[in-house]
């Protein structure tokens, strides 16, 4: 079974991020790392391929400056190869443009299953996986907390607010996974040493047959008109106990729907 995992390489969340005042977007010119939320998809893919006893895991990523730092981490975990789309024309690409690029890159492979994170840790749109599925004409299942493959289909436990839905879906298909679907492995010594020599197919938008005008700033269907510092956190409500504090706390929690 061949599995493609969409992975994003993002600025290290441990370092304070910086916004570009001109483009009003996050600066991505420093070293990028594997988005932690994608490590779950990579691990899930590796486990599914292991369980199938054949096939391999391919990574698909879009990043500036031919960045491969995050890809090498996923390759060290055990993925076999990667397709990296890197092109100056992609600067400013919105979620739909990203989906177009990823779908075209995935189209160069013939996966039985495509995995993606629910959302990236730096963009948070959460729309790309479903868009990729639609562009590829694949069925998609979102919010998977558990995946099993059986006789040409996937069985997914789909996280809901109240519990989970059991979903069956024929393959090929796209599944987005939640954090915690599996425990991502650490790259082993052997994996780290082998990662450097694993193939990374670096392609441009032209290689994918995509019109440069349909992606990047030119193809964006949105515009960032302004960026402002987040408002300071407001002080919380102080409840002084006049004999009814417990009732007011219960009412407050009830309003938040956490009871």
């Amino acid at each position, binding site marked *: 079974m061949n599995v493609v995992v969409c992975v994003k390489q993002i600025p290290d969340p441990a370092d304070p991020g910086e916004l570009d005042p001109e483009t009003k977007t996050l600066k991505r010119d420093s070293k990028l790392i594997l988005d932690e939320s994608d490590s779950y998809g990579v691990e899930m893919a590796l486990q599914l391929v292991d369980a199938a006893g054949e096939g391999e895991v391919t990574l698909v990523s879009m990043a500036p400056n031919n960045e491969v730092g995050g890809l090498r981490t996923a390759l060290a975990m055990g993925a076999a190869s990667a397709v990296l789309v890197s092109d100056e024309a992609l600067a400013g690409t919105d979620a739909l443009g990203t989906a177009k690029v990823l779908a075209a890159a995935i189209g160069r492979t013939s996966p039985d299953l495509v995995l993606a994170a629910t959302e990236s840790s730096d963009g948070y749109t959460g729309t790309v996986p479903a868009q990729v599925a639609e562009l590829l004409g694949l069925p998609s299942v979102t919010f998977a907390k558990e995946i099993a493959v059986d006789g040409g289909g996937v069985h997914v436990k789909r996280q809901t607010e109240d519990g989970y839905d059991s979903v069956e879906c024929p393959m090929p298909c796209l599944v987005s996974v939640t954090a915690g679907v599996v425990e991502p492995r*650490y790259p082993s010594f052997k994996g780290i040493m082998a990662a450097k020599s694993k193939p990374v197919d670096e392609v441009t938008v032209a290689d994918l047959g995509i019109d440069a005008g349909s992606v990047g700033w030119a193809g964006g269907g949105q515009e960032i008109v302004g960026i402002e510092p987040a408002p300071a956190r407001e002080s919380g409500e102080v409840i002084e106990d006049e004999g009814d504090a417990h009732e007011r706390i219960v009412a407050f929690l009830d309003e938040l729907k956490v009871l």
Partner: protein
Amino acid sequence: MHEWSDEHQMLRQAMKDFIAKEILPIKEDLEHGDLPPYDTLRKLFATFGMDEMARSTFRRRIERERAVAAGEVVDEPVESFGDPGFTLIPIIELSRHCPGMVTAMGVSMGLTASAISAKGTIAQKERWVEPLLTMEKIGAWAITEPNSGSDAFGSMQATARRDGDEYILNGSKTFITNGPYADTIVFIAKLDEGNPPAERKILSFVLDAGTAGLEQSKPLRKMGMHSSPTGELFLADVRVGRDRLIGETEEVAKGGREGAKATFQQERSGVAAMALGIIEQCLEVCVEYAKNRVQFGQPIGEFQLIQQKLAIMEVARMNVSNLVFRTIELGQAGRSMSFAEASAMKLYSAQAATAVALEAVQLHGGNGYMAEFQVEQLARDAKVLQIYAGTDEIQTTAIAKALLA
């Protein structure tokens, strides 16, 4: 080499993640609760495939030795772990939090396994070395005695007496890393043939825990390195066969001195890496503290006396880092430092780590003296780097001897 490679950085990050998840939550038990570090070390080995790599390298080596012993021509030497960075990075990262774990690991899979590997027969290596290299078994290397420290061989009182085809071992050892829990112990003694002690041969035997007459003490209380159990061993008429005499011969193999020096060299590189971990951690927490601790209305980092401390720490970090880089670069080229150079590296790194850690305590003021702030522990841990693996004084002698030769 002037910086860590991408692979090194990936490993450093993976190690940091592992330590944050698996070690920091139990650090209190490791450092103050006598929790032995071995299960955590085994988990580290299994997680990063270090056990499997050690096993396959060992087996290839043994196959080659068998082929050589059988007189077959072997053209290609067995490839060893090519990049010393992969050995030193776990040491550096562990030393930032629990340097004692490095001591426990190094003595078991380093010193003990090396002692058997260097002079043992193929059968002895197969019997004892592989489980030590994979951390399946824990090893101890017992040389120090209550009255023999730096003068290890001259003052040694432990004895081995022949009794038919067997030997009877007696003596006591102290400051033995892993002593309380070791499964496999290399016991070093003098062969007592009724001759004067100064003329006696030095023999090494391999003992298993539980052997009749062998007693392993509880962990000793000590200044630092609490995540490394240290103990005493007492041997009273322990009877062993010749199969437990390393090399199965009383004749000292040629090249023994060179072998010992290679082991010391490796050990001293390890100490430099430990020093780097301690220095890096001290510097990191000190910079953070200097930025956030406010006194007299401003962060203490604004005061020049604090800045001086940080600057001196940074100089030490750069120097020790460069020594570690040099070790790695030499190893990658298939070379190693001279004995004197390794001694100089160990001497400088150990002194630098102790000085930095003590200065880190000073920078933290009263907080630095409290266990809650990590520098107190690192200061206690660092001190032993100037004592074990050859004291500062022994390193100094080795350097001077080479200069004056």
